[in-house]
């Protein structure tokens, strides 16, 4: 569950301001956040993931108040609690598909890379149809395949929250539907909230809640 209370955020030397008086996202929610460019959608995701700190207010992720922790602790919370998916995929170019999936277990000592994790990575790759591309490097993959690798990487740590910043923006309709279906099914099966930022109104029927960020202004 995600809960934001009395949030105020401003970028230094900028007019931009984001205020969220109250926002609750339940574990059964699949929520799409919409709004025009520059309205603060990505800022909201960055606040929810602890990448940005609000000036005021509290953000609870499964009853953990992010505003009470320092940057280093937030890294640990993020890697354990959250699965992040970005518009530009953000894969590590020098690691093959399999290593990209398990990379969270190599970059933070809080996670231990075991055979069980490796097994899970193989299963996730199979689930998204990448089982025959495990040894390929990102440069040899299509856009849709890259995003599926990014999804596997987000899911490998068995996150409690899925936060996605325009995950389908660079994809063709077939890949878009495929990616949304994977995210939706995972969220439903594991009973974890799915938060997706999008510009694309055609995908809104996939969500049980739609939040226009302009509502906060």
């Amino acid at each position, binding site marked *: 569950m995600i809960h934001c209370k009395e949030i105020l955020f401003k970028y230094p030397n900028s007019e931009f301001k984001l205020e969220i008086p109250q926002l609750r996202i339940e574990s059964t929610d699949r929520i799409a956040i919409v709004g025009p460019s520059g309205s603060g959608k990505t800022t909201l995701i960055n606040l929810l993931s602890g990448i940005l700190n609000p000036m005021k207010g509290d953000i609870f992720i499964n009853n953990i108040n992010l505003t009470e922790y320092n940057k280093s602790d937030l890294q640990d919370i993020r890697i354990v609690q959250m699965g992040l998916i970005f518009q530009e995929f953000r894969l590590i170019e*020098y690691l093959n598909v399999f290593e990209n999936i398990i990379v969270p*277990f190599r970059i933070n000592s809080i996670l231990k890379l075991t055979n069980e994790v490796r097994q899970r990575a193989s299963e996730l790759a199979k689930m998204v149809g990448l089982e025959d591309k495990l040894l390929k490097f990102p440069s040899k993959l299509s856009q849709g395949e890259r995003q599926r690798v990014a999804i596997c990487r987000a899911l490998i740590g068995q996150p409690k929250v899925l936060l996605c910043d325009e995950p389908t923006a660079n994809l063709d309709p077939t890949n878009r539907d495929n990616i949304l279906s994977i995210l939706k099914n995972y969220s439903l099966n594991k009973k974890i909230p799915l938060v997706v930022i999008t510009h694309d109104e055609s995908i809104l029927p996939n969500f049980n809640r739609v939040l226009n960020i302009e509502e906060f202004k």
Partner: protein
Amino acid sequence: MVHSIFLALQYLKYRWGKTILLILAISLVLFIPMGLNILTNQGSEKLTRRAMDTPLLIGSLGSQTELVLSTLYFKEPKISSFSYKKVNDLKNTNLAHVIPVHMRYQVRDYRIIGTSSDYFTFRQLKLESGRVMTMLGECVLGATVAKKLNKSVGDFVISSPAGAFDVAGSYPLKMKITGILEPSQTKDDEVVFTDIKTSWVISGLAHGHQDVKVVTNDSLLLSKTNSNAVVSPALLSYTEITADNIDSFHFHGNPESFPVDAMIAIPKDKKSGLMLRGRFETNPSDLQILVPKLIIDNLINTVVSVKNIVILTAIIIGFATTIILILVFALSIQLRQQEIKTLRYIGAEKRRINQILGIEILLTLILGLLLAVILSFSLKYFGLNLIDNFIS
């Protein structure tokens, strides 16, 4: 730590082109001064060892360095010869044991050293097979020559003509191999030893041909008086000395006037050595006496000065390269900001990211250093050949 090393290795492997360039740059910067040091130390040792084993050297006036390098390392002689009489004169002083050296001719690329069998004793050269040369037209091969020419005792080698235009001078002489030397790891491995008289045969000062008195074909004898016979060029000249024709070989002129390129003098004692040097220094002569070690020390001092300049240059280049390397690493990290940001976003510890980047740099430096060490060690083995080529 294991994961950081793994990720660093993955990056270096993926960016292999950049990695190899950096490793090469680092290894070259380290190798130039290291290698140069090894090479000059080895060269100095090699040059000095042989020079120290040669107490005194006598040759015509001229370049002292040329005389030493020619006689000790069999470099192509660019010195004047002198008459064999001087060898006998020196022997008659009873101050030193004298070994003549004649080195004008070659068998293919290998110099023929006309000397006496005392040379083998003096240099402590041992025979691997056969015996030393005792007869005109016999020779002993250095270990390398025997191996390279694939020759053994009983085989023959033929001397090469001194030059394309030397039609009237040296004849190619077929020489019988009577012995092969054990490897000595010195320049003696790379030469063909023969008696100095055989060298004179090659130079045309002695030759053998059909006996005019027993020639059956009258057309070969053009004219004859009591003291002189003029024969046709068709008279058979021997190019090989055998037991059958050795008696027909004869010298034209007085052997005391025949050429010698240098002589090694081994004084009977310290006092004799000083007296010998004193005689040459006080009596003006067309010969000079040298202590090879002093000449080589002088040469090494020059080489060391050049080495120091090169090392200084290498240090300056190394300093510049280090700055460039720092710049390359800094630019590389700058270009990887997106990747670093991604790792941070998905939960990487800052310490871990720094560790990965640090290991990448460290591995590159270690591999560069390792390559420099391997190159330097290989110089220890191949450097001696380089030094020999340099001397030659």
